[in-house]
C-alpha cells in the first residue's frame, strides 16, 4: 500500500482535509464547531498548562503502511529530521525542566541519528518515550539489538497493538504484522521490558480497528493481559486506549467505507468536558521533522502550526512566549474529547 502522498490522493492536501472536517453534518445541519463546545465548557481560548512533554516527530519514514495512520507514514516517505534539528531540540530542552521527550514518527528508529538523539536526551537526564511499532525490531538485523539499547537508556517503550487477535491487528496494520509484533514483544520481555520489578516500562496502545470508539481502558487492559499471556506468553505494563482521529488515512477509510458522518456524529455526541480540560496539547509541545512547532502531532499532520504570536520553529524556542499562546483547535479535536478522552498517554477522564 502506498501513502496518500505517493498516490497524489486528494486527502494528501491538508487544506482539503480541513474542508472535509468543516463540512461534516448530522441530520442535514453542520456539526457544532469544536470552539463552540469549548466555550460552553469555559475553556476557550484553550491555554497551555505546565509544559511536561516535548514530542518530537523525527520523520515520516516507516516500514509499515497502516490503514489508520494519521501521519500518512510509510516506506515511500522521505521526510526525516536531521541531526542539526535534533541539536536544536536538545538546546531547547536544556533551557527547560521538561521531564519527558516523546519520540514518534514514522518509525523513529529508522532515522539514522535516532540512537544519538536518545543518548543525548539521556545525558540531559530526561526520560525518553519511544513510540515503537514493534515490527521494526525484527525488520532487519541492524535493529535486532534495539531492546538492549532501549534498556540501557531506560527508554519507556510505547507500542501499538490494536488487538490480541491476529486478524484484527493485521486488518489495520498489514498482513503478518501481528506475528512479527509478538516476536518483537518477546524480545522486549527477554531483556526485562514489561516484567514486574525490572523498572523497564512497556506499554501497549489499543486503537479501534474500525469506525468505533475505544471501550473502557481498564477492561481492555485486563483482557489484553490475559490473552497475550495465555496465548503468547507476553507481558506488558499498561494499555493506553487511543481514539482514532478523523484525519489523513483514517479519514480516507471513513470516507471510503461510508462511515465518516456517523463517526463524526459519534465523536460530537460523546463530547466530555472533563476530557476537554485534560487534553494533552495543553502540556505538550510538538516538533515536526523540519523543526516547526505545533500544539500536537495531529495538528502537525494537518499543517496547523502554533499560533502566530508564538515562535514557529525550534531554533527560536521561547518557553514564556509559548506559554502565552492560544492552542489551535479544529473539528478533529473532538477525537481527543470523546468519552473517556484520548491522548498519547491513553484515556484522560
Amino acid at each position, binding site marked *: 500500500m502506498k501513502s496518500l502522498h505517493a498516490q497524489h490522493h486528494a486527502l494528501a492536501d491538508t487544506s482539503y482535509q480541513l474542508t472535509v472536517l468543516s463540512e461534516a453534518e448530522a441530520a442535514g445541519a453542520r456539526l457544532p464547531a469544536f470552539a463552540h463546545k469549548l466555550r460552553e465548557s469555559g475553556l476557550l481560548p484553550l491555554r497551555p498548562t505546565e509544559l511536561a512533554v516535548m514530542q518530537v516527530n523525527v520523520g515520516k519514514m516507516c516500514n509499515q503502511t497502516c490503514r489508520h495512520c494519521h501521519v500518512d507514514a510509510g516506506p515511500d516517505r522521505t521526510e526525516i529530521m536531521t541531526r542539526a534539528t535534533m541539536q536544536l531540540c536538545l538546546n531547547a530542552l536544556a533551557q527547560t525542566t521538561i521531564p519527558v521527550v516523546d519520540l514518534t514518527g514514522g518509525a523513529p528508529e529508522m532515522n539514522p541519528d535516532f540512537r544519538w538523539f536518545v543518548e543525548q536526551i539521556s545525558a540531559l537526564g530526561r526520560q525518553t518515550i519511544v513510540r515503537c511499532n514493534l515490527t521494526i525490531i525484527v525488520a532487519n538485523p541492524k535493529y535486532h539489538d534495539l531492546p538492549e539499547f532501549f534498556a540501557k537508556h531506560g527508554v519507556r517503550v510505547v507500542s501499538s497493538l490494536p*488487538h*490480541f*487477535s491476529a*486478524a*484484527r491487528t493485521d486488518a489495520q496494520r498489514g498482513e503478518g504484522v501481528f506475528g512479527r509484533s509478538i516476536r518483537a514483544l518477546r524480545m522486549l520481555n527477554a531483556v526485562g521490558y514489561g516484567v514486574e520489578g525490572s523498572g523497564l516500562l512497556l506499554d501497549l496502545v*489499543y486503537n*479501534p480497528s*474500525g469506525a*468505533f*470508539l*475505544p*471501550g*473502557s481502558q*481498564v*477492561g*481492555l487492559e*485486563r*483482557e*489484553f493481559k490475559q490473552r497475550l499471556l495465555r496465548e503468547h506468553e507476553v507481558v506488558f505494563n499498561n494499555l493506553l486506549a487511543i481514539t482514532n482521529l478523523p484525519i489523513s488515512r483514517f479519514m480516507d477509510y471513513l470516507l471510503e467505507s461510508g462511515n465518516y458522518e456517523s463517526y463524526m456524529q459519534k465523536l460530537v455526541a460523546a463530547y466530555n468536558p472533563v476530557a476537554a480540560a485534560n487534553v494533552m496539547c495543553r502540556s505538550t509541545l510538538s516538533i515536526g521533522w523540519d523543526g516547526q512547532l505545533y500544539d500536537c502531532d495531529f495538528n502537525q499532520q494537518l499543517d496547523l502550526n502554533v499560533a502566530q504570536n508564538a515562535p514557529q520553529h525550534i531554533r527560536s524556542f521561547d518557553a514564556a512566549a509559548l506559554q502565552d499562546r492560544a492552542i489551535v483547535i479544529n473539528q478533529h479535536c473532538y477525537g481527543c474529547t470523546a468519552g473517556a478522552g484520548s491522548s498519547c498517554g491513553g484515556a484522560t477522564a
Partner: protein
Amino acid sequence: MEKSTYYNPADLAKFGNVSDWQPEMGRKFFDYYGEVFKEGALSEREKALIALAVAHAVQCPYCIDAYTADSLQKGADEAQMMEAVHVAVAIKGGAALVHSVQMMNKAKELSM
C-alpha cells in the same frame, strides 16, 4: 423523505424519546439499563456479547446494530461475536428440538 419500513436505523438514536410520554417509567428503565451494563461480576465485554446473542434470539435489528458496535468497542473480535450468536442459535434451536420429545410422547400415545 424517510423510507416507509417498520424499522428505520435512525430510530435507534431516538430510543430515549420513549420517556416523553411516561417520564418516570422511562427514567427508571434507563437507570436500570445503565446499571445492568456496568462492569460487575461480568465484564462489560461479556455483557455486550450476551446482549448481542440475545439480540439475535429476539431478532431485534436495533439491538443487533447497537451490540455489534458495542462488542467491538469493548474489545471483542469476530470469532467471539460469532460464537455468542451460535450460543443463541443453539438455545433457540434446542428449545424447538426439545419439544420433539412431546411430539414423540404424543405419537407414541396415539400409535399402536
